[in-house]
């Protein structure tokens, strides 16, 4: 399969990239790793006139803890997250999400930034970012702004980025002490999009849950935050009964449709199961942390 003709540009700086974006608007597409965009172009389902490759733009490969946040540049590869010693302990859920994106080879080029900006409800990171309450840093020639992940994710393939805006950074607040996170995905086979997946982050004070974040993958037009489940958990002891009720509420929050991955009701059941399992795992890690 052959992509249709287009003009390839690899700007040397962010301002240069942003002015190209402003100049060409919806005729242009930003490319990070290209692992979602290029297949769409090969099927001629996407045919941008300009492909703006960010690979030469300096400063987009940051992966560091800075002013109370973990800061991840738009061009940081999934493989880098997967293998980063910095993340293994305190950002386990994020690492686990990267570990199940597509397959190991795709992860060598796929990026967290691209995964979020593509806004595919089946992608793994949007849900985990909901659980981690991440912020998106968007840049345009007018300047930068911070967008909460909840506001960033608008609909299937739609984000709140303006046509002239680029996602440049993801900021994840430092998890407080006694916080644990997890991402659990059920897929038909390696490389598949999730039948459903759940990301969870839990902060404990003693046995009590003080903060919790949850996100659901591929059970709606976009990644879903099961708000009622989160609210139910806060201030409660994370015993089995509580976890099961939270799982039930998460299942209620899902908006699955029936497709090749199974009937809607099945997916709802999987959401319940994975929510419970993710919460147990996150809580276990929180106690250690």
């Amino acid at each position, binding site marked *: 399969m052959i992509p249709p003709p287009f003009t*390839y540009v690899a700007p040397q700086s962010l301002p240069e990239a942003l002015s190209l974006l402003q100049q060409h608007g919806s005729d242009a597409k930003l490319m990070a790793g290209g692992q979602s965009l290029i*297949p769409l172009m090969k099927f001629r389902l996407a045919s941008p006139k300009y492909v703006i*490759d960010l*690979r030469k733009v300096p400063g987009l490969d940051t992966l560091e803890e800075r002013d109370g946040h973990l800061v991840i540049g738009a061009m940081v590869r999934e493989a880098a997250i997967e293998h980063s010693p910095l993340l293994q302990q305190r950002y386990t859920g994020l690492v686990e999400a990267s570990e199940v994106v*597509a397959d190991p*080879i*795709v992860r*060598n080029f796929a990026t967290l930034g691209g995964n979020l900006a593509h806004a595919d409800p089946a992608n793994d990171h949007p849900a985990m970012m909901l659980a981690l309450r991440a912020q998106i840093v968007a840049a345009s020639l007018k300047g930068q702004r911070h967008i909460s992940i909840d506001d960033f994710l608008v609909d299937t393939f739609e984000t709140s980025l303006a046509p002239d805006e680029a996602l440049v950074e993801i900021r994840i607040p430092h998890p407080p002490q006694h916080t644990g996170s997890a991402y659990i995905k059920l897929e038909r086979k*390696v490389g598949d999009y999730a039948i459903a997946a759940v990301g969870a982050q839990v902060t404990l004070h003693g046995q009590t849950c003080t903060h919790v974040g949850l996100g659901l993958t591929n059970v709606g037009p976009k990644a879903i935050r099961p708000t009622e489940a989160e609210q139910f958990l806060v201030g409660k002891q994370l015993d089995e009964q509580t976890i099961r009720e939270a799982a039930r509420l998460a299942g209620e929050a899902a908006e699955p449709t029936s497709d090749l991955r199974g009937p809607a009701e099945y997916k709802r059941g999987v959401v319940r199961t994975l929510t419970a399992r993710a919460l147990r795992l996150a809580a276990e890690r929180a106690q250690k942390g």
Partner: protein
Amino acid sequence: MTQHVQVTLNGKPFQADVEDRLLLVHFIREVANLTGTHIGCDTTSCGACTVLVNGVPAKSCTLLAAQVDGAEIQTVEGLEQDGKLHPIQEGFYEEHGLQCGFCTPGMMLVGKALLEQNPNPTEAEVRHAISGNLCRCTGYVNIVKAIQYAGKKMSAPAPEPVEVK
């Protein structure tokens, strides 16, 4: 519009002016005439087109040639060095790690990259590493053995090359 793409291909400089949209796999197969890299699907699923870009496995059907300008590319043709097979090649030969041979170049390159990070991987580690490459013939059992064979060979002092006729 065209791009000037300059790479190090199996250790030697290689450059060409190519269409912006040219896929890396076609750059390698059609422009550089190295046909050991194959095409098996349209969806980045099968890994038959796997090459090493700056040492890491990449699916060359899902990269533009322009994207790897300036990079070091290694294909299956670059595994054998001055007439001496790479241990990964010996491993696939010794352990019957291939049948039709179509997925083999990708499998070997992934195996090589794994062994450089992890010289003596467990079966589970090998299975994880090759999970982006489909093989329809072998059932993977002997591919795992082949990569582990190469690992032992590479960590062994002064490896004896096996004779591959």
